[in-house]
């Protein structure tokens, strides 16, 4: 039974935007009880389509044609009052950012009860009872406490469960989920996906699921729509689209997904003196709270980490948010001074040196950062960004500029980029500049901190290729920090798994991913979306041979 049908929907952006239409002639239907995924990269118009269903387009953005038929009515023709009675009741929506999706000043229970109030249902007392039931249903422990809690007292995953509880309160026929798991850790993501799947089954509601992640699509979608620059390029049953894509864009996207590839032979760990040697590294943060009697909050971000990095080797540090992996990286690069422990590079302990001594050794470890938008000074030309370091280490301007041009060629950018500003480049190009900057001082070790996490999947693959290529050509030694095991499996020789500041597992890639020794690593592996799809792909390949 078709619940909702979208025909030739177009959405116009305000004047002066980079294109006229955010969404152009999009058509699809949503059947009762199915999960339909709209997948695409940033700017593909997938979120706009979802917002149009709810009548919640951002200011200045308006629908420019087509129909959205639901229950015999065109949603685009409804008045605001008519939409009000629909929202939250017939069609519900959940969003990407669970941390900011709840009013910080209101108790959870009141925020859930509001849904009933908005539609004049139930009495205050029964609203509370229903809220308790809902919290139970979305799997929140101890609903009695949660109902009185404020959002800041809950974790991201718990908040997303609350948002889902609110969306389900009036048993809507359609749930619109706009990237609901993107901001969550991979294990939490798996739990939320399970929850959505389970609720769909129990209630027979239809889900319109917006995502950029084909792994997620493979795990939950019945049908899928692929969007590119506002247009639908491919649509069909999930398995068909994922296994036999027909449109080149879909194919490119699918090819770019890093798989869990740990079958290749890792490079033989060269014996001998390690280039970087870390012993018992610990870091503790103390934050003072504003209260007078309040104790300072102590966070032991990194606890007793030890490992050796050989020349030419890449060690991956993986873990969820809060595992201390980034803190560890910053301690190694001496952006932070570790609390205790030893960091030796080429035999020299740099863990606690200061001033002139630190300056002398600093250039030996360089970093590539996560966010291509905040890692380049918006007010400096690329040339300045690349030469600042060389000049600080005594190069004259002319030779520094010559070297910068060389570096740009090395990362496949044109040397004319020197005269331009960061905002003139795309995310992937900026990340190339970031890599060139890290290489400028000819470091012995490069630390890549989530260096591809902020990039769209197709760009991600290009940057990973570049890193692999540079690593071979320049015989770089690298620490690769990431939350994504799939990415780690593409570039690393050995893997360190971190949990709450501790190293829980350390070994060759094949061993850690193929035969994990701890429950935690296993749970990380289990949570990776799209594994069933990978198996199907492998089977397909085998059959083809």
């Amino acid at each position, binding site marked *: 039974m078709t619940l909702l049908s979208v025909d030739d929907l177009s959405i116009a952006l305000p004047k002066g935007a980079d294109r006229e239409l955010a969404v152009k002639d999009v058509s699809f239907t949503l059947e009762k009880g199915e999960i339909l995924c709209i997948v695409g990269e940033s700017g593909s118009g997938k979120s706009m389509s979802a917002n149009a269903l*709810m009548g*919640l387009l951002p200011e200045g953005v308006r629908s420019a044609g087509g129909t959205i038929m639901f229950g015999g009515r065109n949603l685009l023709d409804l008045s605001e009052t008519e939409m*009000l*009675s*629909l*929202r*939250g*009741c017939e069609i*519900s*929506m*959940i*969003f990407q*950012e669970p941390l*900011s*999706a*709840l*009013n*910080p*000043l*209101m108790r959870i229970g009141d925020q859930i009860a*509001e*849904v009933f*109030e*908005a*539609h004049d249902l139930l009495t205050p007392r029964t609203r509370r009872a229903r809220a308790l039931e809902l919290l139970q249903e979305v799997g929140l422990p101890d609903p009695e406490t949660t109902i009185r809690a*404020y959002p*800041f*007292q809950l974790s991201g995953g718990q908040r997303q469960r609350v*948002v889902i509880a*609110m*969306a389900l309160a009036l048993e809507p026929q359609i749930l619109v989920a706009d990237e609901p798991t993107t901001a969550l850790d991979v294990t939490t993501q798996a739990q939320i996906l399970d929850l959505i799947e389970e609720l769909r089954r129990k209630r027979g509601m239809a889900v319109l699921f917006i995502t950029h992640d084909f792994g997620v699509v493979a795990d939950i979608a019945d049908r899928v729509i692929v969007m590119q620059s506002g247009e639908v390029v491919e649509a069909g049953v999930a398995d068909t689209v994922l296994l036999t894509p027909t449109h080149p864009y879909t194919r490119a996207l699918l090819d770019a997904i890093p798989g869990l590839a740990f079958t290749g032979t890792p490079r033989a760990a060269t014996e001998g003196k390690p280039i970087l040697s870390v012993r018992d590294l610990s870091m503790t943060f103390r934050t003072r*709270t*504003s*209260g*007078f*009697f*309040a104790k300072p909050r102590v966070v032991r971000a990194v606890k007793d980490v030890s490992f050796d990095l050989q020349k030419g080797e890449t060690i991956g540090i993986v873990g969820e948010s809060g595992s201390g992996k980034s803190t560890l990286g910053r301690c190694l690069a001496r952006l932070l001074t570790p609390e205790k422990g030893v960091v030796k590079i080429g035999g020299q302990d740099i863990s606690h040196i200061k001033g002139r001594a630190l300056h002398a050794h600093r250039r030996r470890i360089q970093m590539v950062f996560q966010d291509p938008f905040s890692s380049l000074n918006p007010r400096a030309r690329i040339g300045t960004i690349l030469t600042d370091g060389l000049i600080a280490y005594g190069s004259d301007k002319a030779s520094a500029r010559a070297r910068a041009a060389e570096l740009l060629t090395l990362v496949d950018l044109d040397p004319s980029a020197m005269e331009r500003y960061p905002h003139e480049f795309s995310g992937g190009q900026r990340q190339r500049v970031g890599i060139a900057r890290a290489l400028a001082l000819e470091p012995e070790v490069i630390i890549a901190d989530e260096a591809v996490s902020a990039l769209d999947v197709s760009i991600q693959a290009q940057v990973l290729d570049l890193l692999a290529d540079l690593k071979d050509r320049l015989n770089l030694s690298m620490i690769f920090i990431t939350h994504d095991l799939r990415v780690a499996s593409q570039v690393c020789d050995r893997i360190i798994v971190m949990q709450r500041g501790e190293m829980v597992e350390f070994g060759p890639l094949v061993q850690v991913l193929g035969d994990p020794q701890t429950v935690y690593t296993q749970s990380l592996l289990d949570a990776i979306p799209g594994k069933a799809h990978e198996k199907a792909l492998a089977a397909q390949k085998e059959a083809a041979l």
Partner: protein
Amino acid sequence: MLGFIAARLVKAVFILLAILVLNFVLIHAAPGDPAAVMAGEAGAADEKFLQDLRERFGLDQPFAMQLWTYMRGAVQLDLGYSYRQQMPVAELIWDRLPATLLLTATAFVISIVLGVTAGVLAAQAQGTWWDTLISAVALIFYATPLFWVALMASLLFSVVLGWLPGFGYQTIGANYTGLDRVLDVGKHLILPASTLGLFFTAIYMRMTRASMLEVSRLDFVKTARAKGLRNSVIQRRHVLRNALLPVITLAGLQAGQIVGGAVLTETVFAWPGIGRLMFEAISQRDYNVILGVFFISAAMVLLFNLVTDILYGIVDPRIRIAT
């Protein structure tokens, strides 16, 4: 929450002590004999009085000792003696303080109520002529000197129209009692309090408007809309409450300006508060009174700040519960 308040109290005490040190330093930094500075304009006091002062404050003793003597006195609310007025400064201030408290508190309430209301109206009517009008009026008030508004208001409403009394605290010689007296004081209060509040009304209005618009863009407002809540409910329950947090902070910061502004308003309207006292002391170079009023007005500001801090704690659960 208690810890939070205690921390603020301790801080307030330290600031008061620091102001005393500043006062002491200023007396000694002023050109001329500190005793003469304390006594008022050089030559106004006789030699015996100066000698008294030197002994009492140990002005021939080491600097640290002098500071100690001064602080010990001040902590016991001994703010020195006004030679000009032949009265202890503390007593002078004590007599005038209620009038100033009444004036500043009224102005404070007027400006917050009017400012927040106008700000909410403007934000909700964003982009319409109604918003433009409110914003333009606020902009003009924001650019108008307090004392000039006071002068013009007294000219218009008191001299020309004769609607309201233009000076003083109550009708001289009327000797009202009970409700009549309250009404009489209230009538005298209207002009000074509203002109003092006007400038701050403009500030609160601009702040509330900006804050409302800022909060309207946050994710939880989108969640609220997805629930199917009516816009009026969203504005009141979700937007306004969150938007008021920065306004409360600002209200605390502006309290100091209101107390400072009282000097101007009280001068124009001959309102018998400590601001007027300060103005008189300026022309007589009566330093003890000036410094005393300065100290007490700082204490008033700290009091206003404490109230807004507690208010903030009540509104924001993150402070109420987490500290």
